C-alpha cells in the first residue's frame, strides 16, 4: 500500500519508513506542509500519517483544508502533545485515529490496520500464493474451499512471510516484529505461531519451511 508520512523529525521519519517498508508498503515522506500539499495533490494514498506540529504550520490546518479532498484517505495523526487536550480537536477535525509519540511500531501497525479495515479495503490487500488467497485487511485465508479467520499474531506473522515468499526470517527478527519491547517472550512463542499457521495451510501448496539454524520461510510448491 502507498503511505504518505508527514513528519519533520528526520530520524523518526527514516525509522518509520524502514519499518513500513518491511511490511511491503511504499512510503512517501513530506517534511513540511508545503511538501505534503504537493504530494497529496498529485498522488492517491491509502493512508496518511500526519504529525501535528510541523515547522511551517499546524497539522490540524492540513486536516481542515484537505478533509474534503481526502474523503477517501484515512489519516492517523501523530502527536507528542498532551493527549488529554489534543485528542478531541484532532478527531473532530476528521483524523481517523491518533497515536502519541514516541510510539511502538507494533502499535502504529495495529492502528493502521484498524483504520484501513474500518474504511473498507481494496483489491490490493489480497495476495495470491499458489492456491491460497490471503486478505491482510480482514485477516482471512482462503485455502481451497475453506475460509479461515486468522488471529492477530497469526495474521501478522503470515503477513511477514507473504510479503516476501522464499525469504528466510530468523526467529529473533520475527520476535521483534510480533511482540513489543515490554513483552518478555521466548523464541518458543514463534514456534507456537508457526505451528498454528502450518495447521491452517495444511492441504495447500503453500508451506512454511524450517531452515535449520537460519529460520523460517514461506514456500510455494
Amino acid at each position, binding site marked *: 500500500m502507498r503511505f504518505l508520512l508527514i513528519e519533520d*523529525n528526520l*530520524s*523518526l521519519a*527514516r*525509522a*518509520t519508513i*524502514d519499518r513500513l517498508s518491511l511490511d511491503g508498503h511504499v512510503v512517501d515522506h513530506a517534511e513540511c506542509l508545503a511538501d505534503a500539499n504537493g504530494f497529496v495533490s498529485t498522488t492517491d494514498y491509502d493512508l496518511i500519517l500526519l504529525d501535528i*506540529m510541523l515547522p511551517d504550520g499546524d497539522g490540524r490546518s492540513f486536516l481542515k483544508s484537505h478533509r474534503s479532498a481526502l474523503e477517501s484517505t484515512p489519516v492517523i495523526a501523530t*502527536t*507528542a*502533545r*498532551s*493527549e*488529554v*487536550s*489534543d*485528542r*478531541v480537536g484532532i478527531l473532530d477535525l476528521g483524523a481517523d*485515529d491518533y497515536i*502519541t*509519540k*514516541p*510510539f*511502538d*511500531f*507494533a*502499535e502504529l501497525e*495495529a*492502528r493502521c*490496520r*484498524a483504520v484501513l479495515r474500518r474504511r473498507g479495503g481494496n483489491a490490493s490487500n489480497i495476495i495470491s500464493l499458489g492456491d491460497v488467497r490471503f486478505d491482510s485487511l480482514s485477516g482471512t485465508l482462503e485455502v481451497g474451499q475453506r475460509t479461515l479467520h486468522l*488471529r*492477530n*499474531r497469526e495474521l501478522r506473522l503470515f503477513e511477514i512471510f507473504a510479503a516476501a515468499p522464499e525469504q528466510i526470517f530468523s526467529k*529473533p527478527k520475527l520476535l*521483534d516484529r510480533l511482540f*513489543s*519491547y*515490554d*513483552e*518478555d517472550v521466548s523464541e518458543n512463542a514463534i514456534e507456537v505461531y508457526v505451528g498454528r499457521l502450518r495447521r491452517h495451510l495444511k492441504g495447500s501448496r503453500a508451506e512454511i519451511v524450517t531452515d535449520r539454524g537460519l529460520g523460517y520461510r514461506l514456500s510455494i510448491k
Partner: protein
Amino acid sequence: MSAEVHSRGSIRRRLMLQLLLGAAVLAIALFFIVQSLARQLAEESQDNILAAAVSAILDTTSVRDGEIQLDLPYSAFSMLSNISNDRVFYSVRFGDDFVTGYNDLPTVPKDDGFGPWFDTATYQGDEVRIVTAERRLASRGKPLAVEVTLAQTRDGQRDQLRWISQIAAALGSGFFISVAVLAALTARSSISPILRLTKSVSRRGPKDLRPVAAPVPHEMAPLVAALNSFMDRLKNSLTRSEEFIADAAHRVRTPLATVRTQAEITYRRVEKDENRASIREMIRAIDESSRAAGQLLDHAMVTFRTDHLEQEVIDLNSLADEMIERLHPMAELREIELVLVQQNAVSTVGDTILLQSALRNVLDNAIKYSPADSTVTLCVSLDAGMAHLTTTDCGIGLPEEDAESLKSRFARGANVEGVIGSGLGLTIADEVARAHGGYLTIANNSKGPGACVTLSFPLQ
C-alpha cells in the same frame, strides 16, 4: 465551586435607611412647623380680639364729677364668645382705685409704649391670656389713667390646637409613608443594575470568559471594566496554562521519540544477544519515562480542568463505544478481546475530556495487566441513581490490602513488576470521578481471576 465572600452591609438597606431617616426628620419638622404656625395664628387672633374688646370697653369710659363712668358694652363680650365658650374675666381700675370686675385679676406690667400689653398667666387654676390697656382721662383737672384688664381662658384654643396637631401628625405620617414607599422603589431600582450584572456573570459557564457586553449605568462602568480586564487576564492565563501543559509534553516526548527510534534502529543492527538485551532495556526505560511524562502532564491537565469543570450531558454508552474502538488495536496486538456490555441508556453530566481520560486509563490498565489471549469486559450499567463503568480483566488481580492505596499518586501494586506503568492512571481516574461527584472502586473480580475497577458517576 463557591468561594466564601466577606460581605458587610447592604446597599439597599443603607439607601432605605438614609431615605427613611431623612423622611422622618422632614415629617417631624413638618409636624412642628404646622403646629407652631397654628398656635401662632390662634394666639394672634385671640390677642387681636382681646385688644379690640379692651379698646371697646375703654371707649365707653368717661369721668363725671371725679367719678369714673363706664358701661361694659355687650359687643365686647360677644366678640370674645365668638372664639369659643371660654370664660372671660375683667377688672377696671381708675388711678389707684379698683372700680369693678375681679379684684385679684393680675394686670400686665406696663412697659414702654402705649399698649395694649399682653401676658399669659394662671388665674383660678386656668391658663389665661391677659390684656391690659389704659387711657388717660381728666379728673378734676388732672389726668388719671383708666386701666382695663381683660383675661380669657384658652380651652377653646387648646382644643383647636389639638385638632390641628392631629391633622399635622396625619400629614407628617402620610408624608413619611409615601416617602418610605418611594424609598423602597428607589432602592430597588438603583440596585437592579447590580443584580442584573450579578445574574449575567453567575449564569455563565466555567469557560465563558467573554467580557460583559450588556450596558450598565456609568457609575458601574469602572467596576465592569475592571471585571472585564480581570476575565481577560484569567482567560489568557488559562489558555497559557493549557498550552504550557500541552507543549511541555511535546518538548519531553519529541526527543524521547528520536532516542527511541535510534535505539530501535540499533537494535535491529546488533546481533549479540547481550547487546540486544541491553538495548531492549533502554527502549523499555524510554517507554517508561515517556509514559510517565505523558501521564504526569495528563494528570496536570486533569487537575487543571477539574478546577473549572464543564457541564455537558455525556452519553456513557457512546463514550464507552468510542473508547473501546480507540483501544481495540492495542488489545488486538496482544490478542485480548474487548467486550462491551450495555443495557440501558445511561448519561451523566460533566467534562467529556476528563471522563474519556478516566475511562482510557482504567481500560489501559486492564489491557496492560491482562495475559495475552484473554478478555477485558467493560460494562455500562446503572443502579441506585449512579451510572457505573465497570472494567473487568483476567489479569493477576491486586493484593487486597493495596486496593485503596492504588488511588494515590505513583502507587503501584506490589505484584506488577515488569509491566510499564507510572502509577498515575488510577489517580487520574479517581480524581475525575470525585470531581464529578462520583467515586472509583477497585476490587478483585468476584467471579474469577483479575481485577474489577468501577467508575461511578451520578446520573444526569
